[in-house]
């Protein structure tokens, strides 16, 4: 086998077999071939040329491995809190009319508490100006974050589905379970019923926050580590 090919194969060992990896592999291989051809045409021995070429690049991890990325932790948390604050505020405002049922009042109250707590934390982080604190970094594993994000969405959709179907089964199947039909006395009762279905959807802010947090991780990545 071509020694350059096997060298490049070994460089990429442990990296996922996807388009990005394969493209980079082909690019590096063709550049190494060009380098060897150039060196040998300059009078260098073939073996020596291969050694020089392979020594010129001894890792590709810094080009591909997006697994672990370093982020500005404080700035990241600050913006995440800002987004959380916004989401909670919107949810709080939207749930004000839901106070006509008991659960609605509870949820609305909890959201107000969340707004206050998050708001205070956000302000504290905003007003600490010490450089060391602002530039604090943190290494996070992108793969894990992505996995969490996926599972959070999955759990949330399951929760919504089960909750909604369960309610439908109890309310509209009451004829079967309790030989007693659901009664809606008027618009008020209808609203109460509708609220019962709408309430769990407020929890969408949890997966949305996860979504936002993984975008922010990319935004607050510490600059590229140039090698020279």
């Amino acid at each position, binding site marked *: 086998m071509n020694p350059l090919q096997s060298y490049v194969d070994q460089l990429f060992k442990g990296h996922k077999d996807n388009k990005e990896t394969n493209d980079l592999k082909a690019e590096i291989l063709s550049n190494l071939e060009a380098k060897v051809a150039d060196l040998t045409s300059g009078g260098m021995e073939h073996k020596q040329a291969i050694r020089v070429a392979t020594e010129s690049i001894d890792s590709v991890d*810094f080009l591909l491995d997006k697994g672990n990325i370093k982020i500005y932790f404080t700035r990241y948390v600050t913006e995440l809190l800002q987004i959380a604050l916004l989401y909670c505020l919107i949810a709080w405002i939207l749930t004000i009319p839901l106070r006509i049922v008991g659960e609605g009042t509870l949820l609305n109250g909890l959201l107000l508490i969340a707004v206050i707590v998050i708001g205070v934390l956000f302000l504290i982080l905003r007003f600490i100006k010490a450089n060391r604190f602002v530039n604090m970094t943190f290494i996070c594993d992108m793969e894990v974050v992505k996995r969490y994000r996926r599972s959070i969405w999955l759990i949330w959709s399951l929760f919504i589905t089960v909750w909604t179907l369960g309610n439908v089964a109890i309310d509209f199947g009451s004829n079967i379970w309790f030989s007693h039909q659901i009664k809606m006395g008027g618009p008020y009762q209808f609203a109460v019923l509708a609220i019962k279905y709408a309430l769990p959807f407020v929890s969408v802010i949890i997966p949305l926050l996860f979504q936002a947090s993984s975008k922010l991780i990319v935004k607050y990545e510490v600059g*590229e580590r*140039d090698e020279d």
Partner: protein
Amino acid sequence: MKENSISSDLIRGNIDTIILRVLFDGDNYGYEIIKAIAKKSNGKYELKEPSLYTSLKRLESNQLIQSYWGDESQGGRRKYYKVTAAGMETYQRNLADWKIARELIDKLLED
């Protein structure tokens, strides 16, 4: 050797612009870019492969350059790079910035 590493440090911040300048002369692929830079510097500066790939990746993700595969009949496929309109703009801006900085640094260091 020592001299070389000092100049690398000074050059590092401009590698992206240097590569843009090379691609300004025509589309090119990785190893030829290194060669072109070595030639332009009369062999005084040699861009290392890891820096080249890092820089190309950054330039491409910022859409300052575009890549396409060449159709070599022999050997591996070469990945060519081409400057985009945004790349040209960035190059002009960086060049202007550099001129200002150079003047300033000259003043600060010499006088």
